[in-house]
């Protein structure tokens, strides 16, 4: 029954940052939506979990927020990347790619090379 993957610990923040980099300033709902869409419906995401993550990022100074008006004229709180956030995204992306590469190599080395 559990064919949808849960969000891995620590990756949500990276996804949020990437989303904000790609789409520019966006509200919480939009971010949650986007993450779900990109994953092609594979990730099961409680939209609510986005908010504590946003708060954490804001406290760390990676993003900042402001109330604004949405396309269809709705009041919403908009988040946008700060300079610190850009750097953090860059760094974490690299880290992630490296980790992924190592893991990929590790998993593909099926035979012991003697």
């Amino acid at each position, binding site marked *: 029954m559990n064919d949808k993957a849960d969000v891995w610990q620590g990756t949500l923040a990276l996804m949020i940052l990437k989303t904000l980099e790609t789409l520019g300033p966006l*509200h*919480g*709902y*939009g971010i949650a*939506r986007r993450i779900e869409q990109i994953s092609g419906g594979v990730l099961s995401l*409680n*939209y*609510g*979990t986005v*908010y*504590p993550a946003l*708060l*954490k990022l*804001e*406290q*760390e*100074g990676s993003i900042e927020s402001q109330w604004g008006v*949405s396309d*269809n004229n*709705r*009041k*919403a*709180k908009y988040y946008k990347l700060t300079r610190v956030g850009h750097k953090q995204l860059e760094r974490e992306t690299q880290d992630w790619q490296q980790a992924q590469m190592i893991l990929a190599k590790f998993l593909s080395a099926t035979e012991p090379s003697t």
Partner: protein
Amino acid sequence: MKAVRAWFHRSFGLFGKRRSDAEFEAEMESHLRLHIEDNLRSGMTPEAARRDALIKLGGVEQTKETYRDRRGLPFLETLLQDLRFALRMLRKSPGFTFVAILTLALGIGGNTAVFSVMNTVLLRYLPLPNPQQLVFLSLPNGPPEGLSTTGDDDKSFSYPVFEALRKEHAVFSDLMAYMPLAVDKVAVRSGEDPEEAEGDMVSGNFFSGLGVSFARGRGFALEDETAHTSVVVLSYSYWTTRFGRSPSAIGQTIYVKGVPFSVIGVTAQGFYGVEPGSSTDFWIPLQNRPELSAWGEEPSLIAFYGSPKWWCIQLIGRLVPGVTESQALGKLDPVFQSAAFIGLGTPEPKAKKSNLAFSSTQGIQDLREGYEKPIQILLAMVGLVLAIACANVSMLLVARNAARAREFSVRIALGAGRGRLLRQTLTESFLLVAGGAVIGWMFAISGSQALAASSGVEIPFELDSRVLLFTLAISISCVLVFGLAPLRRAVSVPVGVTLKTSNATAYRDQKSSWSGKAVVASQMALCLILLVGSGLLVRSLRNYQTLPLGLRVDGLLVFGTDPFSVHSDEEKEHFYQNLLTRLRVAPGVESATLISHRLGSGWGWNSVWAIDGVEPQGPFSEIGMSANHVGPDFCHTLGIPILRGRDVTDADTRFAPKVVLVNETFSKRFFPKGDALGHTVTTISSTSVGKHKLENGFTIVGVIGDSKYKRVDEKPKPTLYFPFAQQTPIPNIQVELRTHGNPEALLPNVHAILHGLDPNLPIQKPMTQRAQFDESYSQARLFARLSIFFGVIAVLLVATGLYGTLAYRVGRRTSEIGVRMALGAQHGQVLWLVLRESLLVSVAAILAGVPVAIAGARLMRSMLFGVQPGDRISFLLALFGVILVALAASIIPARRAMRVDPITALRYE
């Protein structure tokens, strides 16, 4: 960095909680609306759209909770909550709070004050950079023989020694010299009124070598030493008292013994000079003029600091980093041995050798010996007081928490964790202790000032960081002790029991009632120990106070004056005669006399005189004599009985036949069979090392009663009294006045008379002779007073503690007592019920306390005077005191128990 920023935000999140809650609510709302609109657009019914949005969002309350935790610091938040709640609880019972905080404040304050004394006397370094490098130079065996020395002859050196040692740069980065301008204070005038101040002459590197910083202006340079410039540096406290911290003090002129000096600097606050235990008011560079001699010695050849025979210079050195004391001494001793005999000739081979040594600059060396033990005992006493105070507060808390048992049970039943409750009570005891510590700190400030004032140490007992740490440490242990003790009981009560039972028959287990009694009993035992200690000290003090002094001490005023403008003996004799003549006719003065070494001041003149040309043989302890210079009417004014012969009179002038009075001990020691009158006493003057010459015969014309000289607890010693005018040179003299009334009322007249003689002359240390004698046992008096103070506090604490416990227990047993009375118990039986309990507790306390008190009293032996550690009266009084306290504390609860109305009591059920 990221984490720090986050913490910063989260701490801020604690405030404005309501507003941001609302904001998050709004954000959620906007989220839902956006989602619902999207859903509607994709063709859902409004119902389904809303449902889907809510499901997608997840548990809203859960999200809110996570969000809240993330926003603030949950730990800190509950702490704040605990604090607020604890404050509310404490405010609700102001009586309890007041008593608890005051009790703790007394305990903590007393400990802090006594520790501050210990810190200053035993632990503190000079407030200078790298103080561990600083050492005093000393001569444990004393200086070489045949020299003129000061009262501090085990740490005084000659100028050649200083010159030789200061060149040892491999050992000392700097060697500083200093010497006082007088034994006590010198006359200083900056405006119209002359006054006294303590001043030192110092070498040019004194301030730079010590690393003294300056509040204003500058210190001395080496040129100031070599050129003997007329500049002066003031201490911060003297600048404050004399110049009101006015910046314009720099450049002003002050007259030291009439010599003008201009002020060039003020040392930083907290620097009181390097003389142990006293505070220096000003410093001048080394001088080489007769008025400003070291120690205020007579301006004769030896008194200039440059003479190799006048060992008057004190030295403090800063060791080069990395040089150990033994390495340093190894290098210095040969240098010292050769420099010591410059100008003295070669030392005799048999003469005792003096060794150079270092003495520590930590604490106050001179006081260490006398104070170390007493301070430790005092610290033990205040420790006991604190223990009693803690026990008291702890019992108060137990009683209070028992009353709150229902509250705790309800909270546990509603799901509060025991940890949470523990934190709650810990917070309360933390608040109590914090209050107690703050007020105790204030007590300690005034307490340590009072201690400093009555101990004769001029340096304030500063409450520095070490004292603060001490206070914090004892406070924290207080929190732990009685934050945890009462709580264990409160939270270990089974919930069901408390909730089920009624208020009156609330849960009570035998064990805890026993522990309550044990606490009271140990408190009383501690109190007993304290009372025995104070009893012994008070009896010692009584012994000091009632010692016969051998003179009529009441009604005597004593003061000094230093006529620095008169030099020749002729002028001096005239000056003192003139002063005496004027004082004799002053209103209120019954008689007047002069004395060179003030009685009871601890200072004296010891030597050996030849009798009828024969030098007494034997160890100094047997043949040593004391002497004093006195004026006309000496015996009459001081009230010393004349046993044979006559008093000193106006006729004993410089040119009259030389005479001397001796005391009874002298007469008995040296003339066991015959009469001392008519025999001759001769000065033994040491012309060179080892060779003595007899000169100046004085005829004994009077034998007078023994009287106390240096201090009240001394043993009678053979003493000679020479007429002051027949001495060469004439020493500086103190004046003794006898009056019928209050001696201090004479002061304005004395002031006017002195001013008439010379406007530059201050009155030195005027006080009653009684007060002067009291100074010689000021330590005993101080400790006796403190122990009385602590004893009274202990008694009060124990009384309130016992009363509280008994009252509480009687309150809880009201219904039981009611039943007993309903069944026919008599008043007497009920009374006995309560009294028996407190009597049992007292007996247990006495059984436990007496052996400890006996052991403790032995430790105090060195502080006792004329009392044995096992003194029966002290012990009986202490026992009596403890039993009295027990009875007094039980009376009110017992009477209340007696008046219990059975009907009312039973209705409680």
